[in-house]
């Protein structure tokens, strides 16, 4: 078990900011936390990393208590860039992590090159752009080859090149067996990275493990919609009708089967639309009321 969270509740005075959060991650994967500002993403991460105390619930990470400092030999947390020392250089930060993690100092140089920050590693952090700071934080987070890495909005504010670069690094990490928990508002990047998304709202996880998000959905535009409707019904195939088109998921009706059935009945297909539901669509559905307001 990589992470096990049971009944996590966190209150600030009387306001409950995390409401009975429960989830488990059993195998290495990329998990995205998505939700509007104030939904509790950062608070939850801080609670998991023992940066914030919580009133109820239990958290264990890699089989250890979340309060065990030795956990950080195997776990990394990329936070807000304000945690960096402005007067120190990127190299100073990396060397410090190397010392603390009992890693050879040469590892700092290797990781700086891997992340693509070697050219400015010797400059003071104060002079870094937002992207450079994010890269440094990422370098610090991956130095120890962690089994679990949590990233709090690492893509926000990055230019497209940096965002793509960061995505590749995270996917590379995942490919090597690291579990990545990432919070972000960049739904397009999230879509490209993972199909496991925890949607959070008002301190709750509304949906989790939405692996079907990335399953293709098709819309068929046909010549005789009424007849097609009858054909699908008689074959007990589940589709949704919208006037002259029919929508279905690959999970419930493979596209080949649908085409075959219609072909056998002499139906002409004008157009096939292939699309994913995607994080954005689901987000819009879940947070419709907020979007409208």
């Amino acid at each position, binding site marked *: 078990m990589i992470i096990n969270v049971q009944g996590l509740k966190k209150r600030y005075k009387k306001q409950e900011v995390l409401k009975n959060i429960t989830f488990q991650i059993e195998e290495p994967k990329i998990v995205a936390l998505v939700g509007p500002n104030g939904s509790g993403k950062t608070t939850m991460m801080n609670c998991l990393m023992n940066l914030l*105390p919580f009133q109820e619930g239990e958290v264990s990470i890699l089989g250890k208590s979340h309060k065990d*400092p030795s956990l950080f030999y195997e776990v990394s947390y990329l936070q807000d860039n304000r*945690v960096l*020392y402005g*007067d120190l250089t990127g190299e100073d930060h990396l060397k410090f992590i190397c010392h603390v*993690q009992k890693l050879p100092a040469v590892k700092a140089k290797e990781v700086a090159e891997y992340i693509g920050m070697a050219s400015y590693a010797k400059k003071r952090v104060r002079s870094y752009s937002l992207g450079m700071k994010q890269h440094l934080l990422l370098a610090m987070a991956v130095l120890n080859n962690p089994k679990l890495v949590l990233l709090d909005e690492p893509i926000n504010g990055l230019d497209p090149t940096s965002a793509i670069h960061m995505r590749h690094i995270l996917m590379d990490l995942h490919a090597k067996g690291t579990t990545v928990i990432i919070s972000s508002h960049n739904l397009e990047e999230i879509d490209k990275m993972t199909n496991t998304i925890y949607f959070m709202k008002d301190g709750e996880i509304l949906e989790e493990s939405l692996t079907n998000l990335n399953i293709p959905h098709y819309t068929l535009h046909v010549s005789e919609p009424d007849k097609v409707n009858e054909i699908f019904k008689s074959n007990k195939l589940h589709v949704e009708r919208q006037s002259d088109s029919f929508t279905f998921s690959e999970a419930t009706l493979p596209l080949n089967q649908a085409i075959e059935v219609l072909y056998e009945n002499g139906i002409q297909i004008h157009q096939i639309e292939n699309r994913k539901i995607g994080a954005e669509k689901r987000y819009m559905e879940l947070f419709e009321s907020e979007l409208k307001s």
Partner: protein
Amino acid sequence: MLHLLRLEFTKMKRSRFTYVLLFVLFVSLCIYFFYIDRKETKLEEAEAYIITNLESHLEWYESAKKELDEKDGKADRILQNNLNASERQYNAFKMMHEGFTNKNWSLYWQGEILNNSFWEETKKKELEFVAKSYTYPTPFTIFSGMDQMRWMEERSIQPIFPTGSLTWLSLYDEEFSEPIAKEIALKYSQKYSTSGIHFIYHLFSYGFGFIGLMFFLFLFSDILTKEGFGRNGPIQMLRTVPIRRSTFWFSKAFTVIGGSFLVICCITIVGVTLGTIFNRFGDWDYPILIYGPDRTYSFLPIAEFLGKSLLLFLLVLAFSFTLLFLFSILTNRAILTIGLTVIAIIIGQTLTDQASLLSWVHWLPFHYIEVYPILSGEYAITTDNPIFTYQQAILSLSLSTLILLLITFSAVKLRKGVMS
């Protein structure tokens, strides 16, 4: 903990403010050395003074002898006394001159003791009539001065000029026959020397006090105020590395106190080196007068005095840094934290001075910020409160620091999520 110490050192190394402060310190140290050098009575001046006196006393002696001879051996008590006194003083300056020329300082002090012995006799008689005199020079001043000379004679310590009875002044010397007498006493009792040991003694008279405290507070304030307690500052990063929280706090404490100690050691080395290059090393066992209760006194070798002062000053620093840390937790703002700490120390000192006679006031740590007067016993004398001792200072500062630490960590606990 070594990792954190290294990090703190790197932070200081990368801070321009550190270099500015250290540069200011070095320049101040050099300027002060120059100042002491200008004030110091040089060996040539001292020698000229001895020779002038030697010649004068020889002249007086010969004149007194001649006068007595002219009386044709008839007994004249006054003339005889004059002759004896002149002879004694002539012999005294002769010994001093010989001692000075041959760098035989024991002999020099024997001469000086002989030269001033009549003061001792006079003051012994005065004590029979007035137990607690305040008229300059008081018996306390003379006796302590004579004993100081005996101490130096025994150990063959090179004098810091000027020497002699008129170069002593104690806290009990309050009444002067003439204003000019006070001026002279004040002028000659301030003994300056650029020899290594004495120079750092002069230097730390300021260093181990409010000025030094401010310097160290500014030098190390970043360590306690720039972690962003209560905000998403670097403290949050340090909390996500495999380090125990207690180690983190110990490293902070060790850095500020250990760092201060190191800086003091460096200042000492620079000061002693400057002194040794331009003058001489100095004497470790030069006597420093320590006031006791009821007009008693003792002496401490200057090295021991400096060592004890350093210990007390480190406690002052520990207390002040704890205060700074508390304000840092409460305010979360670096500038505000330093400002509040300085204000608290100034107000604390002002208030304790006003309330120095209250029965519990010796527990207030602000009394002990100026270290030299505490260790020398001068503070106890000037405040007329014998409880302000060195031991009491150590006790009060240690206890206050512990209490402040308790309050600070309680504040941390109350502000959950800051770093508990």
